[in-house]
């Protein structure tokens, strides 16, 4: 459908040292980024981190103060939005309320002077693709949120943009619809092969849908990687903390064995950590483990597997979340820890007040940089 092959020698988007200020606010700070043709790329970050501003610079609504924006190899830094091969799905959809669904979707094609017959055909096809076929004659302000979202998508996609920009397109929908639309968006993207740049502050959404994710904070692009890498090997503390939940363990090294550090104090406790740069006894390090990597075993059933890191503690709370159950454990040495597992019979057997061993495979833990300043 799109003429991808012609452009494959250039990435769909290249940002080169892009900086944007609003008065004293540094909204986007020296962002350099390449997005490949056909990629589903997400920009993820907390509110106010500069995601929308970045997207608006791609669309042409903002001009960078420094740096350049390239679209399929062409410098478009100063090109007006109406002359760019990008289209946007706005957060509040911004359908034209005085037009029918059909005319909303046809808006871009009419501007391009596409013959009438072809417009009708393409609009109806596109409405089918996004799942609102038959709604063409409806007034745009008489649609449900989900329908509006689909029409907004159709209105943008019908122009066959080089890149589709989406600014938190699902944030106004209820959870159930959002989950469904996530899958649908992903499958539409795969079918059409269009490059998607997707802005969201929902980490689960970003991990679920994207080929690659870029994490932003305070205008800075911290890490760009595949979802699994982001989750399992976060580049820094912020990424680690922002994506998923994290147990942060502050530990004093008691023994060093080659490239591994060890905290050992009897058979109830033994914590391994990788020390690629080497380490010294007495160093205080911060170790991070995901809740789902933490196994709980009632203390009397613990068979003392020496390869697992483990510590003892008492279950203080059990939180049932439907498919998952979370456990808060107080460990004498490491403080509060959060563990999560599938809600099965074993999970049901664990009760508040129970003495447990918390264990994890050393490979699932990663070291956090910096001093152990703010222990939580």
């Amino acid at each position: 459908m799109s003429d991808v092959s012609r452009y494959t020698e250039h990435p769909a988007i290249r940002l080169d040292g892009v900086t944007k200020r609003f008065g004293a606010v540094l909204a986007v700070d020296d962002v350099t980024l390449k997005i490949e043709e056909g990629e589903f790329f997400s920009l993820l970050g907390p509110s106010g981190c500069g995601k929308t501003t970045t997207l608006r610079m791609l669309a042409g609504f903002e001009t960078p103060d420094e740096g350049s924006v390239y679209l399929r190899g062409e410098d478009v830094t100063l090109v007006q939005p109406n002359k760019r091969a990008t289209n946007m799905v706005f957060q509040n959809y911004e359908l034209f309320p005085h037009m029918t669904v059909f005319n909303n979707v046809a808006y871009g094609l009419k501007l391009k002077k596409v013959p009438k017959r072809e417009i009708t055909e393409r609009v109806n096809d596109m409405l089918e693709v996004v799942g609102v076929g038959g709604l063409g004659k409806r007034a745009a302000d008489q649609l449900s949120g989900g329908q509006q979202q689909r029409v907004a998508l159709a209105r943008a996609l019908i122009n066959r943009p080089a890149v589709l920009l989406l600014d938190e397109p699902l944030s106004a929908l209820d959870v159930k619809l959002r989950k469904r639309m996530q899958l649908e968006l992903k499958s539409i993207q795969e079918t059409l092969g269009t490059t998607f740049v997707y802005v969201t502050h929902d980490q689960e959404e970003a991990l679920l849908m994207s080929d690659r994710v870029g994490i932003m904070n305070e205008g800075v692009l911290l890490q760009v990687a595949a979802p699994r890498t982001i989750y399992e090997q976060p580049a820094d503390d912020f990424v680690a903390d922002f994506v998923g939940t994290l147990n942060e363990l502050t530990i004093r090294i008691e023994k060093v064995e080659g490239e591994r550090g060890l905290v050992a104090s009897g058979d109830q406790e033994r914590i391994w950590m990788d020390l690629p740069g080497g380490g010294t006894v007495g160093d205080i390090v911060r170790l991070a483990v995901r809740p789902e990597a933490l196994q709980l075993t009632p203390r009397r059933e613990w068979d003392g597997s020496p390869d697992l890191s483990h510590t003892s503690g008492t279950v203080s709370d059990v939180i049932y979340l439907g498919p998952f159950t979370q456990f808060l454990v107080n460990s004498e040495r490491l403080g509060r820890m959060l563990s999560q597992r599938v809600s099965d019979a074993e999970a049901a057997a664990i009760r508040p007040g129970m003495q447990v061993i918390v264990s994890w495979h050393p490979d699932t833990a990663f070291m956090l940089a910096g001093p152990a300043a703010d222990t939580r």
Partner: protein
Amino acid sequence: MTATTASAPSPGGWRRGLAKLRRRPVASAGFVGVVIVYLFAPLIVMVAFSFNSSPRLSFPFAGLSLRWYEEIFTDTLVLRAFRRSLQAAVVTAGITGVLGLLGALGILKIAKRARGFILAISAAPLAVPGLLFAIGLAIMYRQIGIERSIWAANLGHALIALPFVFLVVGASLERFRFTLIEAAQDLGASRWHAFRTVTLPLVLPAVLGAMLLAAAISIDDFVIAFFTAGQDKTLPLIMYGRVLKGIDPTLNAIGTVMLVLTTSLAFMAARRTTIGER
């Protein structure tokens, strides 16, 4: 400020009084009835007598007839004045519509705080008696050598109607979602095309409503026309002339025609501007 003397009418006292009225439906209905009669009695009398077949302006009615309407619609003086009034209304609506839209659009590009100030300034004429504007205009026209005419009066009407138009259009633009324009540009529209296909259709109802309001203000105006229209007499001026010669039954007919005109304009204006609000 907590110690209010017993005699001072406090808002609390008002509220209590109203609440008492509300508890006695007959009394409150009577009260409302009196107010309505007071408000509308002059109009009702005027409309009623315009259909009276006798020239005597007293009860009882001699009979129903349209003779006064026949008289005014064959009187070239009245007809000419009628045409002038309509022309003034159309011209006023036109001028204020364009200026109101442009002004309101312009004002939105200005920073928020300055915007409030400018809106306040432009609304200030609402508080100034029309008579002062009329005299000021007359003096100014004399100074710069503009003859008294219906056109001179038109400009005056535009002047007094503009604040209303400004407020109505401004309020509707305040609610306008400007990201819609970005959406249009994103789809390939130039600024002008986006304005024509998105902004204009969406604010047009409010602008039309404001124009109808301006037309009603123009038709209704006496003071400005009195000082600036000269020999180009509008309907209110003709009526004034006749009143000076004694109450004449044709006045009732002219008055009724004006009443229908201005109220229907105002009604349409109200409908337009509320529809524009979605």
